[in-house]
């Protein structure tokens, strides 16, 4: 064993035996540009291929090119691998590969490590020419030990240089090889993955990277006594691996949406990047507008003319779109609006997660603007919800908002490859003659629904207006007429809501001591926490809402079966114990407000605005403390 290998006091566990695990959280962190993300993505893909559950999330520096060997430069990836489907990024890391001793501190700031976290660190800094680098390295290692991490020094660069001179930049593939050995991955699958990911490069590049992969694998076999195994399920289906934004992009394609009109904004932009690659071949186009107002205006114009459109944005952009959303509701223009939420208010936390736009989505416009708001809770749902949203928008002649967030946007998860269906695609526009005498807003008294004429349809001519209007689309300021129009647009919500099923309780449907209610990206963490609590005997269940406007039916009845109901959300709420806060003036988190109003249940809330995905461990703590209380 390499002399400098283990610097922990506690001996590594069983040498020849693999330690069987249910799941592990691995991080690879480096200076930006060293390829940690590529190594992690490949590792995730290998695990997915072997049938493991995987969730990966990139660790991205805030600046474009921060100076090397600084905390700001730390860039990398977290890969959570498990036997079952992984639905979230998990708690603290179990094993960390660090390319220098400074990068880990950016993660320590995020409370990403725990006592016992294994740190595999590049050892070359110990012999660095500059004494301050050597000192800093030694100091950091001592500090890691102090914090209870178990540190392994790994001669990454030295070993890479053995494979080929100038192979420094291939360190990431060497690390991939090392991880494959540690986690007992099938080397041939890893080789195929590496070849695949470098397929656009020359043969020499592919060969070099394969060599590095094998060298890392071989080195770990000869020098490291860490062996883990995470048993996998048998993989029968083809799987795709992508992040939530990519899934949204595929949803847009699979929905046959022809126009994606957007203005760049983090963390939504990458959805358009994915689309930009392929939408043209699929018979659609991206329009990068001059601003978010123009982006939605363009989409509404397109949709008015019969070509269903989507606009994708994040909080600040949503704010700008407000007036047009109101027009979309008023004039009943089908439209899909995607909001990939980030931290707010104002410019807020551009790259971080928050679920702070819920109330803005529902009530952000002046006047009564009922619309449909839905929130996918998994990456796979990001894909399917766009298809669904287009259909609902068209059928109910209404804007449909999809709320995702930075956590879903960047989280990567395998899911079964969708079998595309022609009926998902927007049909060609109707250009048959409009039935004479039928009004452009011939509202059904029962459902509020009506059919719209599309420009080009003979005898369907009408002027769309955002002013109050009659069924004929004529401007009207009559009191009764306005009351009628507003109620017809509201009635569509009831009609749509009545078509929804009550949500399914995760845990015990018959009731219990606590019901944890969530929406959007937090589902995986909530349900994982609830499962652990239930294993320890707590009578707790979870309920996850996918529709926020109108809400799924039957909530009150479900709530009544539980002693306490609490929402878990990533947005602001006053803590009951905060100064000045009373039960009367407490500001609740956003879903809690809605549920309290809608169900007259004393719904509590647990939320924060740390800008981080919620960890199952934190939710579990909350559950146990509430129930032991």
């Amino acid at each position, binding site marked *: 064993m390499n002399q400098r290998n283990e610097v922990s006091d506690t001996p590594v566990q069983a040498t020849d035996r693999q330690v069987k695990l249910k799941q592990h959280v691995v991080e690879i962190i480096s200076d930006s540009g060293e390829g940690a993300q590529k190594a992690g993505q490949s590792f995730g893909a290998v695990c997915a291929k072997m049938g493991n559950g995987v969730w990966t999330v990139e660790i991205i520096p805030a600046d474009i090119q921060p100076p090397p060997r600084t905390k700001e430069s730390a860039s990398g990836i977290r890969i959570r691998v498990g036997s079952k489907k992984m639905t979230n990024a998990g708690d603290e890391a179990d094993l960390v590969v660090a390319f220098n001793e400074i990068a880990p501190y950016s993660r320590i700031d995020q409370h990403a490590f725990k006592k016992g976290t294994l740190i595999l660190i590049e050892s070359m800094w110990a012999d660095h020419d500059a004494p301050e680098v050597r000192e800093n390295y030694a100091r950091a290692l001592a500090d890691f030990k102090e914090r209870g991490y178990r540190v392994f020094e790994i001669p990454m660069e030295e070993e890479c240089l053995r494979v080929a001179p100038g192979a420094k930049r291939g360190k990431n593939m060497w690390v991939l090889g090392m991880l494959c050995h540690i986690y007992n991955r099938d080397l041939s699958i890893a080789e195929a993955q590496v070849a695949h990911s470098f397929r656009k490069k020359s043969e020499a590049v592919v060969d070099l990277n394969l060599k590095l992969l094998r060298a890392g694998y071989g080195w770990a076999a000869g020098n490291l006594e860490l062996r883990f195994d995470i048993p996998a399920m048998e993989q029968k289906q083809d*799987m795709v691996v992508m992040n939530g934004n990519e899934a949204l992009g595929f949803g847009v394609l699979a929905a046959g949406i022809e126009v994606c*009109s957007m203005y760049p904004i983090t963390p939504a932009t990458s959805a358009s990047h994915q689309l930009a690659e392929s939408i043209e071949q699929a018979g659609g186009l991206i329009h990068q507008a001059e601003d978010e107002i123009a982006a939605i205006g363009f989409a509404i114009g397109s949709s008015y003319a019969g070509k269903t459109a989507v606009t994708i944005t994040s909080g600040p952009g949503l704010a700008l779109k407000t007036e047009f959303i109101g027009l979309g509701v008023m004039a009943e223009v089908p439209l899909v609006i995607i909001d990939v939420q980030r931290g707010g208010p104002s410019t807020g936390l551009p790259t971080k997660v928050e679920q702070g736009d819920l109330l803005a989505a529902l009530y952000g416009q002046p006047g009564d603007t009922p619309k449909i708001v839905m929130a996918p809770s998994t990456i796979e749902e990001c894909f399917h919800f766009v298809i669904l949203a287009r259909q609902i928008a068209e059928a109910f002649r209404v804007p449909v908002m999809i709320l995702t967030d930075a956590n879903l946007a960047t989280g990567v998860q395998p899911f079964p490859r969708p079998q595309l269906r022609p009926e998902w695609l927007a049909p060609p526009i109707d250009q048959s003659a409009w039935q004479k005498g039928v009004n452009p807003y011939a509202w059904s008294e029962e459902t509020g629904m009506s059919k719209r004429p599309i420009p080009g349809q003979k005898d369907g001519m009408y002027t769309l207006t955002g002013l109050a209007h009659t069924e004929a689309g004529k401007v009207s300021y009559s009191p009764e007429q306005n009351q009628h129009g507003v109620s017809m647009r509201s009635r569509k919500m009831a009609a749509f809501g009545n078509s929804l099923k009550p949500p399914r309780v995760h845990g015990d449907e018959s009731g219990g001591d606590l019901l944890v209610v969530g929406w959007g990206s937090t589902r995986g963490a909530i349900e994982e926490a609830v499962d652990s609590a239930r294993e320890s005997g707590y009578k707790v269940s979870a309920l996850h809402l996918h529709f926020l406007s109108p809400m799924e039916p039957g909530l009150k009845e479900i709530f009544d079966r539980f002693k306490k109901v609490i929402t878990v959300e990533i947005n602001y709420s006053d803590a009951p114990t905060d100064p000045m806060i009373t039960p009367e003036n407490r500001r609740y988190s956003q879903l809690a407000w809605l549920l309290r109003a809608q169900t007259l249940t004393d719904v509590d809330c647990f939320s924060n605005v740390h800008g981080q995905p919620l960890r199952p461990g934190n939710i579990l703590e909350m559950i146990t403390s509430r129930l032991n209380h």
Partner: protein
Amino acid sequence: MFGLNLDACIIDLPEKYYTLHDYEKGVARWCPGCGDHAVLSAVQRLCKEEQLPPEKTMFVSGIGCSSRFPHYMNTYGFHGLHGRAFPVACGIKFRRPDLNVFVVTGDGDCCSIGAGHWIHAIRYNMNMTVLLFDNQIYGMTKKQTSPTSPMGTMSNTHPHGSVLPPINPLLTTLGVSNVSFVAQTADWIPSHLYATIRKAYEHPGFSFVKISMRCPKFMPAAVDAKVSDKEHVCLLTHENGVPVDDATGRVFSNHLEHDPTDMNQARQLAANEEISYLGLLYQNKAALRYDLYGAHNLNYTPEQKIAAINQELERFTV
């Protein structure tokens, strides 16, 4: 029957001949003497002359007196938001090359709240006819200063006179890259108004027409001088410009031969604050058109679409 071959007798008549009546809807509710009436008549005449199918014709507007225009046309119409006619019109045109798109906008709508979209719409150069109803005042909201109000205009927001020099819509438009058509006309010269709008309609691209407009209610002074004093008006003439008929040419006797491809002279004329040059200031039929890009991949079959998506999914499959 009777030995007649009926098939041979049938003349190939157009399906329908549209009359002016086919384009009229309701009674326009602008003030008596408002210039908007004149534009409505000219546009309806254009539709008839060109036999534009009403169902294939779109009027898109923002908010303002002028933006009520679509309500009086028996075509498709989109009376949207204040300042936002351009993005909507561009969205309509992007994937619907078959529609004839007109934009009707006011000086506040276009040059103030919608100024950003205006600049970009010029650059997109999509095939549409843009009519700027420039009455130099906010009509709808009752006499506030507009960005085109001459300095010193007494308005409800500047009772002692407006304090900034106005924006020059012609010069601004001429300054944007990819500009392709800029013309000026006036509501009180019907023949020139019609000829200009027609020229704009015929232009393959974003044709911008600034129409000097009377607002007898709130801004009578601005235009009255020009209406009465013909010395302040000069008609541009050129074989490729807006045709000037004899009668109009006689009434407005100042003429200037101007080649509409001459950008430098166009800018000089547009910048002249003493004289209104009416006619075609600039035209470039070769300017790049974003609507052609927008329409380059229309009507893919479901099979084509699914094949393309599947191919892309391949990249993400493990």
